[in-house]
């Protein structure tokens, strides 16, 4: 019996090793010959084209024009629909973008691509000098209003209208607002900048205030700011003197009128009194906190102010008017490491770097150092390259051949959370090559870079660097390779190819694929 078993197994193995009777179809010839040339072909690694399958479900069978509020979506994710094109210059066609839709945490499309743009709403934070993300999506739709023909040709006229939605879609406004402004603790939605009809929501979509609460007849929504629980407003549609007020959320006047004011920050604000020269710092009750009127004050959002003196030199003061340090420069800007000021003469300009306490880090009066914006680096160009110094550590690095050193900002699409990461790019224009530098401490991270881009996760704000097809985290650990990257959202990579739009996780697994409905290019 054992022999029989061995024979059966042997026969079966022999069968397995023998070539199939039917040759694979279609089978190309071993070598082609045409026009007298034989061409070597090798199909070893060839696989016939197979278009990627779409990967999503739908909330409804029918086309979903507008996002409807629901409590059960979970996080919403924007995706791009079929690319759109415009043609100009006798046949040059350029991709103009796409319309955007949303899918939910279950991979269901909950709004078809009908929005011209979907981004995070943002506000400007004085304390960090950066755009900060609000907990809302800004849904933009462009409205065609007419076609104009004149001597320059034909063009379309239109305007944009906006809706806001919470990140989980539980709160969604109508897509009808022409002016939306985000604050740290809320968002104002109005028909337009110049209108007198608005709704102020808190960050959960609850109505805090409407135009009915405003005690004035004459104002523009564009003049309203909401900071630290206080409304500031210009009660005039012209630039009349002394028409600025601070209100509470019930519309009660807290104090005013002023000839000018700034929003509250760290419990203080800057105002101009009617009939007085200069600016004054006040507290929440409207009482002066500083002993003097100053020619010009710029709030740093952390309770400190840059004072521009009458003689033009800058110093940093606190809300009580105490001098933190006297920079003696013509300008003074806050930076991530401290302050940077410029001093101008008739023939030159010099850059000075200070830490947050006013200690001078670098004096460029002898060597023409220039700030590398939004980084702790300064650069100095020579005939043979660019020298870079980390003003915090004093480390220096010379980059031969470089023509330029600059920060890498997040993609403009994101905008609302534009940031830099711990690196800059040095560019050699002649060879068209770049290198990427880590500036803490300053050292070369990547050589011969052709393409570098920075992304901030639009939900978490975590930063990533994309260099020549490889994605790194902000500590330069490799995450993976991607053909291109459009955005990073909630820890997922968004990219597009010729067939569709894709969300992949950090391991490269495709979570969502929306294939374009028509050809993506000519």
């Amino acid at each position: 019996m054992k022999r029989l078993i061995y024979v059966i197994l042997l026969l079966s193995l022999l069968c397995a090793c023998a070539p199939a009777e039917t040759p694979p179809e279609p089978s190309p010839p071993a070598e082609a010959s045409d026009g007298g040339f034989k061409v070597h072909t090798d199909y070893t690694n060839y696989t016939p084209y197979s278009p990627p399958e779409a990967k999503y479900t739908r909330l409804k069978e029918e086309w979903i024009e507008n996002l409807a509020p629901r409590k059960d979506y979970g996080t919403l994710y924007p995706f791009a629909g079929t690319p759109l094109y415009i043609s100009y210059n006798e046949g040059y066609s350029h991709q103009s973008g796409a319309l955007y839709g949303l899918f939910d945490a279950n991979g269901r499309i909950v709004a078809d691509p009908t929005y011209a743009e979907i981004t995070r709403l943002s506000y400007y934070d004085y304390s960090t000098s950066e755009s900060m993300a609000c907990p809302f999506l800004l849904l933009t739709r462009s409205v065609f209003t007419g076609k104009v023909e004149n001597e320059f040709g034909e063009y379309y006229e239109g305007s944009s209208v906006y809706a806001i939605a919470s990140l989980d879609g539980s709160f969604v406004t109508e897509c009808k607002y022409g002016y939306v402004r985000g604050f740290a603790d809320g968002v104002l939605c109005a028909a337009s900048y110049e209108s007198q009809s608005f709704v102020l929501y808190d960050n959960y979509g609850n109505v805090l205030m409407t135009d009915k609460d405003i005690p004035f007849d004459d104002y523009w929504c564009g003049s309203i700011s909401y900071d630290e629980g206080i409304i500031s407003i210009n009660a005039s549609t012209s630039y009349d003197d002394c028409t600025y007020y601070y209100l509470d959320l019930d519309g009660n006047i807290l104090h005013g009128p002023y000839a000018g004011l700034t929003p509250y920050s760290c419990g203080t604000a800057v105002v101009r009194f009617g009939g007085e020269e200069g600016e004054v710092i006040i507290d929440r009750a409207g009482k002066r906190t500083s002993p003097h009127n100053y020619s010009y004050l710029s709030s740093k959002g952390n309770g400190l102010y840059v004072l521009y003196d009458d003689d033009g030199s800058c110093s940093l003061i606190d809300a009580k008017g105490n001098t933190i340090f006297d920079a003696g420069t013509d300008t003074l800007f806050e930076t991530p490491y401290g302050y940077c000021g410029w001093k101008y003469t008739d023939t030159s300009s010099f850059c000075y770097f200070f830490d947050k306490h006013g200690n001078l880090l670098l004096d460029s009066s002898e060597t023409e150092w220039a700030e590398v914006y939004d980084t702790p680096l300064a650069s100095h160009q020579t005939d043979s390259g660019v020298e870079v110094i980390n003003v915090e550590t004093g480390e220096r690095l010379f980059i031969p051949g470089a023509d330029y050193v600059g920060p890498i900002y997040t993609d403009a699409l994101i905008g609302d959370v534009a940031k830099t990461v711990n690196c800059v790019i040095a560019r050699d224009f002649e060879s068209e090559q770049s290198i990427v530098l880590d500036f803490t401490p300053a050292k070369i991270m990547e050589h011969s870079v052709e393409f570098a881009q920075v992304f901030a996760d639009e939900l978490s704000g975590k930063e990533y660097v994309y260099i020549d097809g490889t994605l790194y985290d902000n500590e330069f650990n490799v995450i993976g390779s991607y053909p291109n990257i459009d955005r990073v959202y909630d820890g997922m990579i968004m990219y597009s190819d010729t067939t569709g739009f894709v969300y992949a996780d950090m391991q490269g697994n495709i979570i969502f694929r929306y294939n374009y409905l028509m050809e993506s290019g000519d």
Partner: protein
Amino acid sequence: MKRHLIFIIVLALCLMLAACGGGGEATPTPVVPVEDAFVFTRDNFPKMDGSTACIPLGEAVASVLLGESREDCADLVQFNRTTQSFRNLKDGLCDILIVGQPNAAVFDEMEAEGFEYELETIATDGLIFVVNENNPVDNLTTEQIRGIYTGEITNWSEVGGNNESIVPFQRNEGAGSQALMVKLVMGDTPMMEPPQEYLIDSMGGLMAAVKGYDNSASAIGYSVYYYANDMKMAEGLKIISVDGVEPSPETIRSREYPHLNAYYSVIAASEEEMSPARILFNWLVSEDGQRLVDMEGYVSNINFE
């Protein structure tokens, strides 16, 4: 023991079945180069350019001539769209095009600059029309299509369908299928204004953009057969016959289908006889090259069925 024997026989049968069932996927046998065969390498491989619709074919060509996978060849298939790729060939930025029909203006440009080229048809495609799969209309005449896109025919009942308004979607000027629509169907007849349902903001200001298919029951639109069928772009939509002819590889190859469009390979006329670009140019119309075109789902010049 009997149970063991049955198990072993079943196992053996499974092995034999597995051995016989290997023909599901086309896996051509790797070849050994013969003497005098031209061998493409990454060093001598011509720089390709062309249309977006030809990217899969470009990848396949690079794959079988270099022995690499499609994915590994992706860096060699950076196509810049039809019209721009012709300009790139003229300017010496690439060696060979795998390409669809360009904007006519580019031929004038090439002539004006004295650029001479050679062009061969390597595959044929058709401009097809799609409606929602629930639309009862299965066929339109070219005249009816022209009537729909001039705005003369506005209701599906006028062409045998339901009493519903027709929503004729167009592509923007510059999209390949829009150029084909004008060339093959409309001719000198101007198309009606497209429905400007959405606009899109850009750095250049506000500009018009036509919404893609919304797949509504009353919509009609157009694309090319390769995209709509082989690239599975028409899911949920129905491809209709035109002038009574259903678009298919057979009716496109036989030129029975009325609205056809060619894919070409193009090189500079100055390419030498033994240059890699000319060798590839010739290979694409050879039986071997055409078989690859067919395997990739394009309607090849040669019928291999």
